[in-house]
């Protein structure tokens, strides 16, 4: 696949700005809690952040084609429970993980076909499909934790094994982000996704297979959410039926924080968004502030981020936009 080159000057500045923001948040927590920025705590933070980041990466694809997926966090419960169930049957962990990912693929495909092929309204159909998946997740153990064979099978290594001092899950996250960056920002495939998101009709008449692109986006979302839930299960050492229920807010926050700075939903933006939301949540946990205050803060940050993304978009619109920017602006309109 030919790599598309582009001018990176603007992007470099925004990334730098992001690091300043990031440092500001981290230093604020460091002042209140001196153990916040030790090596141990940073690696733990990356470990917890990896799951959110992976799930958010999948959701990014759906947001890029200007749809919404409310099923990913519920289908991930099913996929990870399926994986845990396979593990408890003494099946090799690699096959079990593959099975879990396959379930993510299937549920994502169902949502994708409902939205892409049958043109059902995206939000409400994914709520329905996700709820069915969540109900089905109770079939394996009637809602109880599955922890048989978990510690002996080696599945724990998916989260705990360290390579160069960093856990495997973080490496997986980084590799996925690099692949996604080249796929979405630097290749023809990425243009299909963005053009579908900008205007379906125009994309269709430009030779993009709109329906397939939408289905693909939902499948990516389903698979990556499943992977995130599987890694989270591995970290907890048990199959938990409600494992994905906390993904919804952080994932949307990550994407919108990224959107607010990069003016379009994109891979790098999601990465930094996930990083910042992880730092904030971990900071609150380290300072032993109850979860609901960190949720409250994240909701505030989300609202603020959307506001910023709108502001950027407005100022872009009032200029006579460069053709490239204009296309991005239309993505933001969704």
């Amino acid at each position, binding site marked *: 696949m030919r790599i598309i080159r582009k001018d990176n000057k603007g992007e470099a500045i925004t990334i730098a700005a992001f690091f300043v923001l990031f440092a500001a948040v981290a230093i604020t927590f460091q002042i209140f809690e001196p153990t916040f920025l030790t090596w141990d705590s940073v690696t733990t933070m990356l470990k917890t952040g990896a799951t959110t980041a992976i799930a958010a990466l999948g959701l990014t694809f759906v947001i890029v084609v200007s749809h919404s997926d409310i099923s990913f966090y519920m289908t991930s419960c099913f996929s990870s429970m399926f994986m845990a169930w396979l593990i408890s049957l003494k099946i090799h962990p690699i096959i079990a993980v593959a099975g879990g990912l396959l379930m993510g693929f299937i549920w994502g495909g169902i949502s994708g076909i409902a939205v892409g092929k049958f043109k059902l309204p995206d939000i*409400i159909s994914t709520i329905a499909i996700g709820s*069915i998946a969540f*109900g089905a997740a*109770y079939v394996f153990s009637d*809602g109880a934790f599955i922890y048989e064979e978990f510690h002996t099978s080696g599945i724990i290594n998916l989260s705990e094994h360290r390579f160069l001092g960093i856990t495997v899950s973080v490496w997986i996250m980084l590799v996925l982000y690099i692949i996604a960056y080249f796929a979405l920002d630097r290749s023809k495939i990425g243009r299909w996704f963005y053009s579908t998101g900008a205007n379906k*009709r125009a994309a269709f008449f430009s030779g993009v297979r709109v329906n397939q692109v939408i289905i693909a986006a939902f499948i990516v979302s389903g698979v990556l959410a499943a992977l995130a839930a599987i890694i989270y299960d591995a970290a907890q050492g048990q199959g938990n039926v409600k494992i994905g229920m906390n993904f919804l807010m952080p994932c949307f926050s990550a994407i919108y924080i990224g959107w607010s700075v990069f003016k379009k939903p994109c891979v790098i933006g999601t990465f930094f968004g996930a990083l910042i939301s992880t730092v904030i949540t971990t900071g609150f946990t380290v300072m032993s502030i109850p979860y609901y*205050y960190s*949720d409250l803060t994240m909701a505030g940050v*989300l609202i603020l981020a959307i*506001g910023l993304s709108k502001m950027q978009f407005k100022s872009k619109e009032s200029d006579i936009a460069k053709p490239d920017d204009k296309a991005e602006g239309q993505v933001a309109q969704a």
Partner: protein
Amino acid sequence: MKKKKGILTIFQPEYALFWLILLAIIFFWIMQPAFVSFGNLMNVLKNASYMALMVLGLTWVIATNEMDCSFPDVAACASMVFAWLAFHGYSVLVSFIIAMLSGILCGVLTSILVVRFKYHSLITTIAVSTIAKSVAAALYGGMPLSVPVIKSTGFYKFVNSYLAGIPVIFIIAVAIYAVLFIIQEKTRYGQYVYALGENRVAVQEAGIKTGKVLTGVFITSAFFAALSGILMVFVVYGSGQPKMGSAFFLDGFTVVFLGAMVMKLGKTNVVGTFLGGIMLAIVVNGLTQLGASFATSQITKGVLLVIGIVIAALGQRKNRGKAGLLKYE
């Protein structure tokens, strides 16, 4: 679309929900004869009434083509605010008013963000619901807050009483629904709500203040969610429930989209939502009596929601006609 005449009209999709309700009753009757006892049916109506009240406002939100995911958490927030105030010795009336205000505040926040700042309503309501959930949890450390005090009040006895065998809360719900039905059908406001769902630009060009209509819709949604949250403290739980939200999320949408089959085909509407609430209460009650697992009832609700969505989508497609559909649509 050719109109069918006479007896055949009852097979039109507009009446599909009546058939579904009838089928559900017959099914549960066969499986569990005790299901159709008078006491149990009144119990179904009781459950249907607060369920239907919670999503009454959501009906109009969805009719305007917007989204509101915050209703269950607004209900949870209002129930916790009410319980917290009543627990700290405020009178039921004061607690009730302040709890309603807290719910309305959520609606105001949503409508300001959506109408004034043009946020996407889905993301906004996800954020607002998180705020409501956090506030509800923060009031009592995330635990349910029991308020035995209210049991001695007159209002408690009133809403839990029966009038000629029919639960009073059901009568309250019917009365509220009747008022909103009149607003929907006989006032300009109700027509604007549906006009907004058809074409936003056309409505704006016709000189109607779309922002005001939308604001009203979002605040109505929060208002009824809060009302139902507080009523549930009286009728169901006897305590404030900070985690009520997750239990009613799917139920709410199922009720509203089942209702989209009735009357205005493919459009969510007040009468439909009411019947949808009864349908869901029948299914939930029947499945509980059969001893169904969580998985079974969750999947059943999900499938009902899919049926609602598909019939609504088919209805809208039929109204649009073939010319409106291009190959890529």
